[in-house]
């Protein structure tokens, strides 16, 4: 470690190489830090629980053909009954949406009737029946489920609210921070909307959207006991364990047998919940994988670059190394010379790189919906790159240490 001065003197004679290595380390640090941060953000998002028991669930999107919107209620009822009686089916229901589906309803919610202004909370609306908790596999932590006679039939353009609602714990806590939401009243946004009494609270149920914009209310859901009319609806089916594959085939067939005048087609018409989750987070996972691949290749290339340039320096300095060895320097001295040299270049690089990393992140924050980089990532990146540099320089440094003292006497 006492060699800093001579190292600096030597580096001055290799300005270009020094700058190139430092610059490469700096840029690598800037990109790796941000890439790791993006990976962490995406992984965090895609590992959020939906609140559902996700195994053995099947979603079928149905559209009635040439049926008057008002007549769909009875058709839907027949469908649901047919589905529930199907072998292998545990339970089934008709709904407008479900967690991670990708589309649904959202509205403001208040403690007092409110037509305008900022609502107390934001929630998604799931129009379901008394089978919902069983089909979702959601856990009721307080209160009770809907009863069959609470379920009303309503037009989607006409529905304002229902006397009873079940909400998620997240929404209950947002509206009633003291934790006494059960039995209290809440108001969905709009003019002259009657109040809804919270009769039950479920532990967790995510909104239909996986996008960043829904982050603020990702677990705020309200269940309303409503059978919607209209030509468009979703059948959510819970299969008995091990029966999902069979039900995926038999359920659409059973529906078409019940009534042919419907459309169940398109890429997303029949999806198991596993597929739903995959679709919802496909871009997030893709981004994480892409960033991971880029990080690995980048680190490999930077390491290779350091090996290449250091090898060149060792080759160039064989004579000087020989002289030093002849004057009494041990192999260990030579080894530590190159390690220290690399460490110094590395430190210069990571100092610049840390600045670049933060700068790049700040720029991305203004350009894209991106969170601020936490210092932990910069710190981890700094350590990683310094270690990488030391590891990369080890092989050429060891070769340098093997230069025999007799080299000093050659070809002068």
């Amino acid at each position, binding site marked *: 470690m006492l060699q800093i001065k001579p190292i600096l003197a030597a580096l001055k004679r290799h300005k*270009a*190489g020094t700058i*190139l*290595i430092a*610059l*490469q380390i700096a*840029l690598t640090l*800037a*990109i790796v830090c*941000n*890439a790791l941060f*993006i990976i962490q953000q995406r992984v965090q998002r895609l590992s959020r629980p939906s609140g559902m028991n996700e195994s053995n669930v099947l979603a079928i999107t149905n*559209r009635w*053909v*040439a*049926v008057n919107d008002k007549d769909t209620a009875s058709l839907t009822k027949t469908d649901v009954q047919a589905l529930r009686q199907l072998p292998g089916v545990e339970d089934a229901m008709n709904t407008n949406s479900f967690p991670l589906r990708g589309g649904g309803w959202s*509205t403001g919610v208040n403690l007092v009737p409110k*037509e*305008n*202004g900022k609502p107390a909370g934001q929630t998604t609306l799931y129009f379901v029946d008394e089978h919902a908790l069983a089909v979702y596999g959601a856990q009721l932590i307080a209160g009770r489920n809907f009863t069959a006679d609470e379920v009303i039939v309503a*037009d989607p*353009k*006409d529905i*304002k609210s229902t006397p009873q609602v079940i909400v998620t714990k997240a929404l209950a806590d947002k509206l009633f921070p003291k934790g006494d939401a059960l039995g209290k009243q809440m108001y969905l*946004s709009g*003019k*002259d*909307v009657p109040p809804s009494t919270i009769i039950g609270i479920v532990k967790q149920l995510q909104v239909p959207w996986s996008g960043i914009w829904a982050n603020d209310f990702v677990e705020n859901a309200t269940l309303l006991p409503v059978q919607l009319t209209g*030509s468009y609806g979703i059948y959510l089916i819970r299969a008995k364990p091990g029966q999902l594959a069979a039900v995926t085939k038999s359920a659409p067939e059973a529906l*078409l047998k019940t009534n*042919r*005048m*419907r*459309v169940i*087609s398109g890429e997303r018409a029949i999806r198991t919940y596993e597929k739903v989750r995959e*679709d919802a987070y*496909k*871009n997030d*996972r*893709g*981004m994480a994988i*892409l960033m991971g691949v*880029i990080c690995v*290749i*980048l680190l490999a*290339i*930077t390491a*290779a*670059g350091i090996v*290449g*340039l250091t*090898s*060149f320096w060792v*080759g*160039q300095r064989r004579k000087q190394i020989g002289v030093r060895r002849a004057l009494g320097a041990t192999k260990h001295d030579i080894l530590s010379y190159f390690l220290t040299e690399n460490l110094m270049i590395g430190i210069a690089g990571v100092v610049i790189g840390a600045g670049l990393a933060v700068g790049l992140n700040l720029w*991305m924050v203004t350009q*894209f*919906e*991106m969170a601020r980089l936490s210092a932990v990532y910069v710190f981890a990146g700094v350590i990683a790159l310094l270690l990488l540099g030391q590891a990369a320089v080890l092989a050429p440094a060891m070769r340098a240490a093997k230069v025999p003292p007799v080299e000093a006497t050659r*070809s002068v």
Partner: protein
Amino acid sequence: MFSYYLQLGLRSLRRNPLLTALMVMAIGFGVAASMITYSVFRAVSGNPIPEKSEQLFIPQVDSWGPKYNLTGNEPPYALNYVDAMALMREHKAKRQTMLYPIGMSALPLGGQSIPFTVQGFTAQSDFFAMFDVPFLYGSAWGTAEDEQRAAVVVISRKLNDKLFGGANSLGREITLSGHNYRVVGVTENWNPKPRFFAVWGGSSFGEPSDIYIPISRALDLKIDTAGNNSCRGRIDYGDWDGWLQSNCVWVTPWVQLDSAAEVAQYRQFLEGYASDQQRAGRYGWAPNVRLRNVMQWLDYMQVVPQESSVSLLVALGFFAICLINTIGLLLAKFLRRASEIGVRRALGASRREIYMQYLIEAGSVGLAGGFLGLLLTALGISGVGLLFQPQIARLAHLDVALVGLTLLVSVFATVVAALYPTWRAAQVQPAWQLKSN
């Protein structure tokens, strides 16, 4: 001389295969990462209608007021029914259309088969001329059909193939969601990317449309929008007519304005309309209107997916690092041959010739890197589908332009990267080198 230098270069590259492989790989990976992300970016950020993007405008009128408006007091992305009808009735532009996306069911002929979904748009007759929609058979419907609320339809070539086996189907009837429509036109395959005319409330990179029907007919049949419907304040509109009168925005208007004067005139008209509404008491705020053309609209709506920009950015950074790496390695490689350069210089080679020789050597490294990059790009593009949503992934494809660009970028970048090492090589003093050996 060129081929001699190329031979020298190749020989030198063979002499140190590890270092050469390292450089080729760095360039290959760097250029491939950039090209894969660029191919996606190019597809999502392009101009979907280059000939007319300056003439097509989307008028926006503030119908929500400052309390509900989007960030920066931006008016809503679309019009409500009342405003849309009023603007179209005035007909202040040469060509104009309103539209909204619809999803319907189509019943194949024969009756026993299962119906399927089709998707498309309601529009007015000008839609097809404004957006240069190519026709295979027939043409657009006329303004008369718009006014008569006629049950006519323009279908896509794909749907025509499916329903009529590709035959000329003009005059035939098809059944959509229980109602019959007469086919007046069959479009060629047409799907601008991004689908600029329905960025809000549609899918910017979705499947091509199957059908187009007159908006007047769709409104008669109370066909709901399949796209966004955004409301503020009271959402209890009750029924269809209540919804039409509500402040929910869901209709997208487009106008064609051919000159700056026409644009100014139309803007004036919009402001006049808004202040009329203020005077009539419908709006409780000052006129707040926008008139954006296609590219301004796409930019404002941020159509380019965030993933695409971020990955392109990261890939370019990655490429830059690969090039810095290449500079370092070339420097090492060239200066290791200082004595050889010294001999050549002493024997009479000029600096120019040294430049030539080493830049050619670097160029051949770049070319090799380019071929590796091409291979990796092809691999990567076929793998994009595994990583990203199909509607984005489908956009990435390898074409002649991309192949050319890949090779060009790798050779050019490598030669640029070699400038400094070559300069250093040309600076070698022959006397020094000769002396020390």
